[in-house]
């Protein structure tokens, strides 16, 4: 029954800007997914999500997203999360324009 836990990051949208942010190991938020903390254990991931949900004055709609380790930090495994790290494909706007 129990499905194997796959590594996760905690992500949300920033309250004021509305853009995607990721939870860092120090409990703060980053606009760059590479800074995120990657959780290999389900219990720790859930605890971090609870921490995120307790910050409604900073972020909106926190959730756990699948990710994997990359050379510079966590990277997405699904295309939706990949788009959230970049921005739309029809204009050079959003995160891809900030870099």
């Amino acid at each position, binding site marked *: 029954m129990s499905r194997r836990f796959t590594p996760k990051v905690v992500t949300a*949208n920033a*309250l*004021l*800007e*509305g*853009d*995607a942010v990721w939870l860092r190991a120090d409990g703060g938020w980053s606009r760059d997914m590479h800074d995120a903390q990657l959780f290999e254990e389900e219990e720790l991931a859930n605890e971090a999500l609870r921490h995120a949900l307790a910050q*409604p*004055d900073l972020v*909106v*709609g926190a959730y756990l997203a699948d990710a994997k380790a990359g050379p510079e930090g966590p990277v997405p*495994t*699904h*295309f*939706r999360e990949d*788009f*959230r790290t970049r*921005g*739309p*494909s*029809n*204009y050079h*706007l*959003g*995160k891809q324009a900030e870099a």
Partner: protein
Amino acid sequence: MYRYDDFDDAFVRTRVAQFRGQVERRIDGSLTEDEFKPLRLMNGLYLQLHAYMLRVAIPYGTLRAEQMRQLGMIAERWDEGYGHFTTRQNIQFNWPKLKDVPDILEALADVEMHAIQTSGNTIRNVTADHFAGAAADEIEDPRPAAELLRQWSTDHPEFQFLPRKFKIAITGSPNDRAVVKAHDIGLRMIRNEAGEPGFEVLVGGGLGRTPMIGKVIRDFLPKEDLLPYCEAIVATYNLLGRRDNKYKARIKITVHENGIDTFRDLVEQKFIETRAAFGGADQELLREIEAAFAPPAFRAVDTAPFEAAREADPVFRAWADTNLAEHKDAGHAIVTISLKKPGATPGDATAEQMRVMADLADKYSYGELRVSHEQNIILPHVAKDDLPALHDALKSVELATANLGLVSDIIACPGMDYCALATARSIPIAQEIAERFEELKLEHEIGELKLKISGCINACGHHHVGHIGILGLDRAGVENYQITLGGDATETAAIGERAGPGFPAEEIVGAIERLVLGYLDVREGPEETFLQAYRRLGPDPFKAALYPDTKDAA
């Protein structure tokens, strides 16, 4: 043209002031997101993948030049310099900052606009034919009836908690340009045998998860019975509609499960009561509204310069033959400005383009514009001798694309480039298909072809009623595109049928090209459209073009 009365203006201003306070309290932390979310949705503010999005209502798709100019100003000042016109005749701004939204709403109120969505399970914005008040085939302008419906349904005490949301569409012409058969109630104006105008009334249409074509509940409804009859329909649905399952709560399921005859009997019984209760009280209001929608005084026009330009300039001729529609005044034309230049995002207009369109409306279209559900902009009343100058002005801002109704005039929802509900992207697929056919230089030879793309099952891109429909899905973590064939959004409406297995993103453009070239091979001649050929031949030759390798196996 119709203007807000003082009550409307005061109401909108009060709502903006309230929302300003709510945003302040959200930012300082005294409102939680759970408390704030319903408030922002009521004010048209959504949170999407990369940013907030503000959806601004354009009732029955009608805009004055000053309103379009203000939309351009908003796009430039508080957004990223563009806006997106949608299939619900709205405009969406994709990058507003939360703190700026009250100022944007204030700027909208200055031109009698707002982002108030009748959210929840109520009667939503009424949509209408985008050629309303101008089309040669129109019996009457449908917008006064649409406005009457808007006033009747706004804050209607009995209908604030319907089983599900409720959408009404109306057309003043027997030729349906408002997709009325895909709405909860569809109203199509026709004449009875005595020549009097009235409505064919349809119920239970809708797209989304369970697409259905609306069924005729009344062959002919006299105009003056419109409100009592709609009230009878909504009241019947309010009692009968299912509240146990969100996916079975729309009126299309109620009609489907009970049968149209049973549903009609109940409505007609209720109608006896509602008609007596109304007693014609709404007709005086209707006459006031009709006076406010009176058409401009069309000037006399010499059409010779237009004919001469058409003969002399092939580029102008291609545009005129493709993007003009017949106006009720022979000296005028309805101009559709395509927002579908190949490679551009369907429905997007830059701030500068909005400003230019506003100026051109003032100069050439009696100050009026319309937004179509096909994501284009219409100048409804252009004198024919002004057309060459108008065309020149449009060329200078890349708005003179001559592709109306052709394969590159694609409807596409925002899909996963913006929408949080999406299962795949729509926009890049639309861009690539349009560019491919641009390269092939076959578009005008192919003729009328309606291609519509949605980024999820919610079907905002109307894919079910596209001659060719494309639905973007997530198949095991990869974008995949399913094709439907033979859909139709007009008075001969039909839901498209699934062609077969979907295609990955890198194969979908090639598949569409094979499909369209396959059609050219089998059509009887240039006058037989894609849809007509599909209806004559059935799906087999089209499937064979789409899936050449499996031809023998199938």
